[in-house]
């Protein structure tokens, strides 16, 4: 069996979800879950199914921080920038992460391994500072812990 193409994946998702009330966010989530991002070339398909303009769909994608229109690295690292983490050394951790990866927020390492995104609160404020890699949250993260996590993920 061959892998479905990107457009086939999107068409299946759209057919499944388009009749839900307020279907656009569920569709964008499903597309991003399947493909890692919402490719701009899929926007016309989504727009047509929901009777929206391409601009409207693009407007929604660009409004929400979570949706992205470029492929992410293999792992997405999110560093919490909010107050609780700041009170427990979050700034130093943030600087360490940026220096170690050699990238700033919204960038991906040249080898395609890691994307870095800021996040404003993971709800892990009793275990600050916190980061998230993929769907896994890590609490009380020291710079050494981060280095170990990075080694683990790079392996």
């Amino acid at each position: 069996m061959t892998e479905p193409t990107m457009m086939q994946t999107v068409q299946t998702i759209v057919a499944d979800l388009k009749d839900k009330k307020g279907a656009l966010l569920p569709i964008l989530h499903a597309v991003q879950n399947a493909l890692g991002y919402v490719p701009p070339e899929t926007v016309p398909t989504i727009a047509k199914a929901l009777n929206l303009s391409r601009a409207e769909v693009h407007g929604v994608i660009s409004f929400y921080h979570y949706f992205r229109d470029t492929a992410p690295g293999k792992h997405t690292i999110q560093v919490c920038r909010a107050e609780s983490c700041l009170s427990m050394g979050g700034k130093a951790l943030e600087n360490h992460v940026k220096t170690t990866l050699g990238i700033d927020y919204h960038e991906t390492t040249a080898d395609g391994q890691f994307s870095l995104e800021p996040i404003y609160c993971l709800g892990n404020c009793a275990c600050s500072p916190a980061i998230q890699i993929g769907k896994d949250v890590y609490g009380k993260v020291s710079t050494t812990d981060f280095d170990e996590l990075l080694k683990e993920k790079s392996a």
Partner: protein
Amino acid sequence: MSITVYVPCDSSAVSVGANRVANAITQEAEKRGVAINVVRNGSRGMYWLEPMVEVATENGRIAYGAVKTSDVASLFDADFLNGGSHALSLGLTEEIPYFKKQQRLTFARVGITDPVSLEDYIAHDGYRGLKNALEISQADIVKHVSDSGLRGRGGAAFPTGIKWNTVLNTPADQKYIICNADEGDSGTFSDRMIMEGDPFVLIEGMTIAGLAVSATQGYIYLRIEYPHAFEILNTAIANAYAAGYLGDDVQGSGRAFHLEVRQGAGAYVCGEETSLMESLEGKRGLVRFKPPLPAISGLFGKPTVVNNVISLASVPIILDKGGDFYRDFGMGRSRGTLPLQLAGNLKHPGLVELAFGATLREVLYDFGGGSATGKPIRAVQVGGPLGAYLPESQFDTPLDYEAFAALWAVVGHGGIVAFDDTVDMAEMAKYSMEFCAAESCGKCTPCRIGSTRGYEVMDEIVNKRDLDKNIPLLRSLCDTMLNSSLCALGGMTPYPVLSALNHFPEDFGVSVEHNAA
């Protein structure tokens, strides 16, 4: 009979290794040929002790914490399965002072039950509120909620009963219940703990709300940052449908209530109720003008109840024990309990549910144990990123909506973030403006442009440039944002900014006498 061992599945506990500890315990038990039953419970909320392992004994549950995988073999050696003594022993969980001193109403079951076990929920007094609600009139359900004095726990503190009554009395062919689970306020995690630790209490609360106002469809708008809560909620909802607690015929009453979880996509402003509804409708999360109120014309133009997770999760106990029971907790016009979230630089961060009226100092020191770093606590932000910073001189304020409002501060969603004396309050004020600029929906000018200008002015101030010009400019800008923003994002960003400036002028390079507001 096998012994039951509890290891939390709460995502904060997992963030410090609870899954690894649970696996290590299972493996060690297999290796030693001991039969155990590992239950993944919610967290008791004593996060400095997480991962906290509990063992069920004849005398009650005995706790061990914080457990690392390297401790597991020695716990077995110490016969922890029978409550044996170990360096990590904490004694009976419910005798731990931090826990024992609380008044847990909304959080009664969190950490005790298996979150997705409906049987466990019912065995611990679950669905008693719904049972009562099915036996009384809609007006009487609303009356219980009104009598309880419950006010919106999301932060705005609007009386829940009034909201419900408006929806009840607005005729429509379709009405909706929305649970606002977009817990974006930094320093808060009580919604997450409920959804991960006792999802049925939220489902029951929403079902009661649906019955009360004739709404047949509910949506939980959940932030994307809570993937674990998403899974647990969906499992619990499926279990509730299977047992007839959700669906076309709730418990044979002939009344329908359906429930679905929808995920947000990382926009803080979608915690504002009208922006949330735009998002649920599949649009950009732009704030709507009010009126019309959502209770009259809300989701898809229909009458809609929008309540926070904690508000809805407090409804079952109100319907179980009556509005008067709940109202007997608290002070003044702040009735019932508030689940406080102790966060930031504290020795004992966690969830503390207390009746309104405890002072900030009691919470910070008697529960929080002072700062984690051992330095003096210099500033405390209460109520999330739009809440004011309080200096030590205000720590004796009771946690009460009106007492905080009198100080030009807010209780909000009950998040308390402590900072030690290394904090630079001008940097924090700059951060508040930066956050507002990043999260502004862009619909109104004071918020969209004010926050960016505010960040630029704060940058000047942090670099001590032109203070004579920039401090008055900052105040003027805050005045504009406060008085002319469309919603609380632009309208309250001046709270942290101006409270930082007013209470900590030295960090802004301003002497106290030159800092007249």
